[in-house]
């Protein structure tokens, strides 16, 4: 009789231990899920793209490559100047434009257009691109990315899209 009780107590003790461990785990998860969810939230954002006007078609000279600025696709109210992005825009025909990403395809540094040399040059690790965006020298594994660009009602519009990330 006594032994039975002891066994019963042991079972009860085991049960309570397991119950406590399980409840602690559930309680931890209840807190962790929303916390981790908010930290990794940027991964679940929908890709944001918006056409942004960067100036009248006539204001761009055919053949010239100029820097244009625009506001990101979905700026937060407190982003301030960090909401701005830039592109290198070239008018190649009456209504035809090319917009290069300013981010070097190597590690994202801001490339500069050197008009005299007709080259894009990166200040960080010496990446150089030809006029058409293809690699001229240095470490970039591919040419410059391009943004979709269009002439719309006399305005040049660039599709404000994510910073291009060079992947393997």
């Amino acid at each position, binding site marked *: 009789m006594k032994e039975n009780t002891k066994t019963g107590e042991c079972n009860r003790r085991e049960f309570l231990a397991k119950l406590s461990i399980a409840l602690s785990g559930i309680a931890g998860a209840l807190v962790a899920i929303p916390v981790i969810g908010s930290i990794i939230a940027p991964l679940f954002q929908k890709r944001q793209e918006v056409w942004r006007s960067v100036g009248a078609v006539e204001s761009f000279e055919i053949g010239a490559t100029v820097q244009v600025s625009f506001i990101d696709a979905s700026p937060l109210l407190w982003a301030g100047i*960090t909401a701005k992005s830039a592109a290198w825009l070239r008018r190649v025909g009456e209504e035809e434009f090319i917009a290069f990403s300013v981010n070097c395809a190597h590690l994202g*540094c801001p490339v500069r257009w050197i008009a005299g040399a007709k080259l894009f040059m990166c200040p960080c690790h010496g990446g150089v691109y030809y006029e058409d965006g293809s690699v001229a020298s240095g470490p970039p594994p591919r040419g410059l990315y391009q943004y979709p660009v269009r002439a719309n009602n006399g305005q040049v519009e660039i599709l404000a899209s994510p910073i291009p990330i060079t992947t393997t």
Partner: protein
Amino acid sequence: MRILKSTMSWLDDRTGLITSMGSIMRHPVPPGSAWFYVFGSATLLAFLVQVATGIALAFMYVPSSGEAYQSLQFISNDTTIGRVVRGMHNWGASAMIALVFIHMVQVYLFAAYKYPREMNWLTGVVLLACTVVMGFTGQVVRWDQTAVWSIIVAAEQVGRVPLIGTSLAHFVIGGETIGGATLSRMFAYHVFIIPGLIFIFIGFHLYLVLRDGISEPPEIGKPVDPKTYRDTYEEMLKQKGVPFWPDAAWRDVVFGCSVIVAILLLAIIVGPPELGKPPDPSNLDALPVPDWYFVFYFALFALMPPELESYLMVGGPLVLGILLISLPFISNRGERSPLRRPWAFAVVVFAIMAISALWAIGISSPWSPHFDAKPLTAEVIGVTSGHIYEGGQLFNDKGCLYCHAISGHGGQRGPDLTDVGSRLSSNELTWRIMNGGLNMPAFGGILTSDELSKLVAFLHSRRKP
């Protein structure tokens, strides 16, 4: 005095803190530890300086992508004390990075990571990683132009991870572009997450130091044998041990005080790093260079072969981490003296030489075009009109100058062309300019034949005196 004494004894009776603190402070340590052992405590002290000055900065700093820059200007320019505190936080960070590295080298050379202190090494590796992340996020919350481009560069690096690269990059940036979310996230890492981890792991690290004792200075011919080590160590402490406080601690205090005085003096005399331009991603007039402790890594990316780059960018840190973690498992017994471990010595010498060399070349960054190179003057060109003069002007205008130097003017990316006329014929010059080569773009489609002949005439006139 009597009141103080009775208060203390009441407090000790009710809490036991004073007695246990006393016994911790006076725990026996091996004799002869000398000055080699001060770097761990100095790293801890540098961290505490960072906590204190970081809290002070948090009283003035606004962690908002749109406003942080203005608050940094206020801290740096409009308040004397803010400038000093920012300076201390900056130099404290430099001290912590330098000290944690020296501490690791010393532990490695003395093989203090061997049995039974493997976990001390592993917790130390975690603390090293945390310190590096603190260095990066700290440079980034100094929210200027360089900070913005540094985040993009970091995002591009993690972007090379197979399959999940783009997601990781967006995780770093806090979205698909730099913006309102970016700084808030960096601030949370820098101020809550990583410091929290550092507190936990410092606690663990110190607990282990007390549990297993500090390693005795290595002696040739006294190898570590896990079977007997603990008993021998206990016996040695019983016979020759000296109380940590004050016999060994005084050196930590003296060195720690010097570190703090140095941080404060540097903060007052040199001050914090100048704030760069505002964090405007559309301002492309930028020359992003990381703080000194990352310059060697920055240099590595310019110099590594592009074909291997993606593998090294991801695999390099991974392999380094695995090596550091596996070290105490690969060798947890045997000789501890660096005099009997020539390979350990060689590893340290090689690491220091490699980092120093990369560092030195990273500072001059010869691979970067010199956008601010001053145009060649008529004096340098040597004539004031004609083909050669016009060729000299083309050398300025076509960007040649950014990468090639002539008579000390210009960049260092390509060969110095001061006396190229003595090395290459006109035909060879023409061929090279037209076709490019190695790291030079082909200018065939860029120059007219008239421009080309003038440029060649100019270059051919560059002769040895």
